[in-house]
């Protein structure tokens, strides 16, 4: 199987080749879905965001500047779509269902599962702009440079947000009694 790189596929898309777009969808549907899922913690919402993200990518491909990495541009759209979805929610809706504090006792769960849930809870308790940097750094494993490109912020600001986000997560987890030693 020959894997065409992003710039080639994007150029083919811009020339009207829909099959090139199919390949971009197949390549990036999972990371885009996961960005949205981590931002929203809502599977249906993440599906909607993934769909709207690719629709916007498709509609605005002519505006895409190849000087930037394609996935940076696409992740930016995914994050903006996620933030829009969060903004449309009612207060507290972001922390719902089994994520609430009165869930099953942590002692009855395996430690890894308990910590995973606690981390996901904690993520929903920090501001979306801080959650965004955690997602880009630790889930999408982007460099500071790429994160700055996605967020259109100076690297210094990205680092500052990332440090703050980690601190808040740590404090939240310790308050919840999660063992981080």
């Amino acid at each position: 199987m020959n894997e065409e790189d992003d710039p080639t596929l994007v150029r083919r898309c811009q020339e009207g080749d829909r099959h090139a777009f199919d390949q971009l969808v197949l390549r990036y549907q999972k990371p885009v879905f996961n960005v949205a899922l981590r931002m929203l913690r809502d599977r249906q919402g993440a599906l909607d965001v993934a769909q709207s993200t690719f629709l916007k990518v498709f509609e605005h491909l002519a505006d895409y500047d190849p000087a930037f990495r394609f996935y940076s541009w696409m992740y930016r759209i995914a994050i903006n779509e996620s933030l829009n979805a969060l903004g449309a929610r009612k207060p507290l809706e972001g922390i719902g269902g089994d994520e609430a504090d009165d869930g099953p006792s942590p002692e009855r769960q395996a430690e890894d599962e308990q910590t995973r849930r606690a981390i996901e809870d904690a993520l929903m308790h920090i501001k979306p702009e801080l959650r965004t940097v955690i997602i880009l750094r630790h889930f999408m494993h982007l460099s500071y440079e790429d994160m700055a490109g996605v967020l259109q912020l100076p690297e210094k600001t990205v680092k500052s947000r990332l440090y703050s986000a980690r601190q808040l997560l740590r404090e939240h987890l310790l308050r919840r009694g999660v063992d981080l030693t």
Partner: protein
Amino acid sequence: MTEEELALIHAEIDGELDGRQRGELARQLLADPGTRAVRDQLHRLCERLDTLEQAEPPSDLPTRILAALPPATATPKRYRKALPRWRYAALFAGLLGAGALVFETVRGPGPATSEMTGTMAAGAPVTLDTVSLGDGPIAGRVSLYRDGAALAVALEVTADSPVDVLVATGGHTSRINGLTNESGAAARIIALPGTGLKGQAVELTFLMSGRRVGSARLTVP
């Protein structure tokens, strides 16, 4: 703990410390158990964050995404040049009663185009499954064929409006735009990736103006 000390810890986590900063952090860690505890907690937190597994999206997400795209006005000419259509025409002309044939391939892992051409050319094709599309906005039939080790779908359809079709099989989805011509009729062969394992399904979703107007499921017996 100062902001500078915290910044050193975060920079250490991200592998951004130079030699001098590493020495500075090491001195602080030795001098202050509190700093050491915070550093260990942040390291542990970041290890956990780094190893959280990605969720699997539903298998039909690509289909949903592609179905939501606006319809194309025409199939790009460059794509139609991808296959040596005369080989397929020679093979399938006897199977389809009428209409001009246009050949496409669903891209994905599987034999290379050259391999498919070679296998498709050998022996007579066998019909594996056929589905009638009924009397809705799109009518006609679709059939699944095997020829040698290769699979293909034949579409013979009529519709009042331009039709696109999504073809999903073996974890791969592709979109064929402008399936029907201006007269509303189409006869088209789509070569599929893979060799067609028993029970493999080929899902076809027909779209008009981006809206789903019909579907068909073909199965390898």
